[in-house]
């Protein structure tokens, strides 16, 4: 006996797990097989005109493999009669088709209230507790109401809106080799790729999310929170042109956008270890943020305040440009306008400041002023210093004179 999974729809229930599917079973005997729904007991003799429903649903590959082997035996067995052989061949084609469909990607959408569908316009509105899952990655979207518009000829999604309590969890696909190596190292044996728990790439919550293929715009509005492995953002609105890969993140009037980014860890002159060192957190606020992915740049504007957790330094500026490397880590920060920085043991001010994290240096440009705890005060048009206070080397740049005042008790 073999199970033909998810091939036919049950004429009675139409909705057995997974919905719309039924397990068909061969009933022993010389007759053509009967199909039996395991939930309702609905039995129907296969006449070849049963409702063929495309097997959209996730298929347990093991019974499919068994069915495939059995059909192979049926076809090639010496005692198999011609009708059975023909039947088995058609069954084989069906199984192959099932396998092909299985390889395709699907999105499942469920709603506890209604779906209002207008096929002529390609629109559908899903209401109440809408839950969307992308099968290939496991990425999910939950919201109160989901409206979608698909192209009536190609079925391609052209517009979508998730309205109310939007919660999206995005997985970026397969488990990375890096993660596998890490787990292998921790457990001391090779991990099972399929059973490895996957961490989401990002989790997004907001009140309203819209997507438009025509304008290539994705917008998130209302208490937006994005938690990603590379950054964290809290804002009122995010508008992102995914074609140009540019975006704008704004806060409510009177409030500020909160962000967390990461910078490359400093080595402190030590040899790099086999295990990758932990990235260092940089957080802060700004009135708005402009993102430009092609140039790996973020521009923070309006009352920028940044805290570097690696040395507890804090700085303020009117504007700051952040440049990222390929690992989405901050490489350079250029702060402009009324720059001031507080570090344990040092304060500094200037018109402009350039942080170069690879060199662990900061250059203060224009009316630069530095005061250290040991009462050394330095002023110059340009001062270059190590970001770490304890390294304490301060010098002028390009032969620009430095005025140093040392207070003597």
């Amino acid at each position: 006996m073999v199970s033909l999974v998810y091939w036919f729809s049950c004429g009675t229930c139409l909705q057995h797990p997974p919905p719309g599917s039924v397990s068909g079973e061969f009933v022993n005997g010389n007759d053509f097989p009967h199909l039996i729904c395991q939930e309702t007991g609905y039995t129907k003799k296969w006449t070849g005109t049963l409702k063929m429903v495309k097997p959209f649903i996730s298929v347990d590959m093991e019974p499919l493999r068994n069915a495939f082997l059995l059909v192979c035996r049926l076809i090639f067995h010496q005692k198999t009669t011609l009708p059975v052989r023909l039947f088995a061949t058609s069954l084989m084609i069906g199984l192959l088709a099932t396998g092909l469909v299985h390889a395709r990607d699907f999105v499942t959408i469920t709603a506890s209230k209604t779906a209002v569908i207008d096929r002529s316009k390609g629109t559908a509105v899903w209401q109440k507790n809408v839950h969307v899952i992308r099968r290939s990655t496991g990425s999910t979207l939950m919201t109160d109401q989901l409206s979608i518009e698909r192209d009536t000829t190609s079925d391609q999604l052209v517009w979508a809106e998730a309205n109310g309590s939007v919660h999206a969890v995005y997985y970026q696909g397969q488990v990375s080799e890096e993660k596998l190596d890490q787990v292998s190292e921790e457990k001391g044996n090779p991990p099972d790729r399929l059973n490895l728990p996957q961490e989401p790439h990002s989790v997004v919550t907001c009140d309203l999310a819209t997507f438009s293929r025509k304008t290539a715009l994705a917008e998130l509005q209302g208490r937006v929170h994005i938690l990603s492995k590379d950054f964290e953002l809290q804002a009122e609105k995010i508008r992102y042109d995914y074609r140009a890969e540019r975006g704008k993140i704004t806060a409510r009037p009177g409030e500020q956008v909160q962000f967390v980014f990461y910078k490359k860890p400093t080595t402190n002159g030590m040899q790099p270890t086999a295990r990758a060192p932990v990235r260092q957190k940089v957080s802060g606020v700004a009135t708005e943020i402009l993102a430009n992915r092609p140039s790996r740049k973020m521009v923070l504007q309006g009352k920028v305040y940044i805290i570097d957790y690696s040395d507890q330094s804090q700085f303020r500026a009117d504007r700051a440009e952040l440049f990222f490397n390929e690992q989405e880590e901050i490489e350079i920060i250029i702060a402009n306008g009324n720059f001031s920085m507080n570090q344990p043991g040092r304060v500094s001010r200037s018109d402009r400041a350039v942080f170069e994290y690879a060199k662990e240096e900061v250059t203060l440009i224009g009316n630069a002023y530095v005061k250290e705890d040991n009462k050394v005060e330095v002023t110059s048009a340009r001062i270059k210093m190590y970001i770490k206070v304890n390294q304490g080397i301060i010098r002028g740049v390009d032969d620009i004179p430095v005025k140093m005042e040392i207070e003597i008790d």
Partner: protein
Amino acid sequence: MRILTSGLIVILLVLAVYFNWFAEGPQQDTQDADLREEKPIILQNPELFDYRNNRLSSQIKAKMAKVYESTDLTLLTQIDGTVYSENQMEPPTRIFAQSGSINGKIKLITVWGDVRIVFANGQRLYTEKLNLDQNKQLLYNRVAVLVVSDHDKINADDMLYDLKTRILTLSGPKAWIETGF
């Protein structure tokens, strides 16, 4: 004695309420009995046509029809129905079912048993029972439905399809959509 009298009055009242409020049952029985008693007109391979504003609005072919004239009720087997859209340019909606009935008084067509609908856009709908309200131009039911098209499949608890606006409303929907995202 007084208790017995009161109990009797209460029982009588309950019975009176039952026969007045739940009179549909006995009436239905009477109607069914009438149907059983009435000898229907039997038609083999009939084709039934319905016209609206001098235009063919629906056409039903069946293997057999039993027409009960007194109740204006027609029972059909092996139905192949076609519902034409008000817009003549649009293709019609096809309905197939094992059995059905046409209530001429209220212009209600009910079909049941392996019901299959092929919509103008090629979308297919499978269910076990379906009603077509010809007055309101609505297709509806209260049983599970399965809607299948080229790139998606939707299960739902019940459905309502407005033939005029061509909007399909499904309750408790669960969909599988092939990604074109």
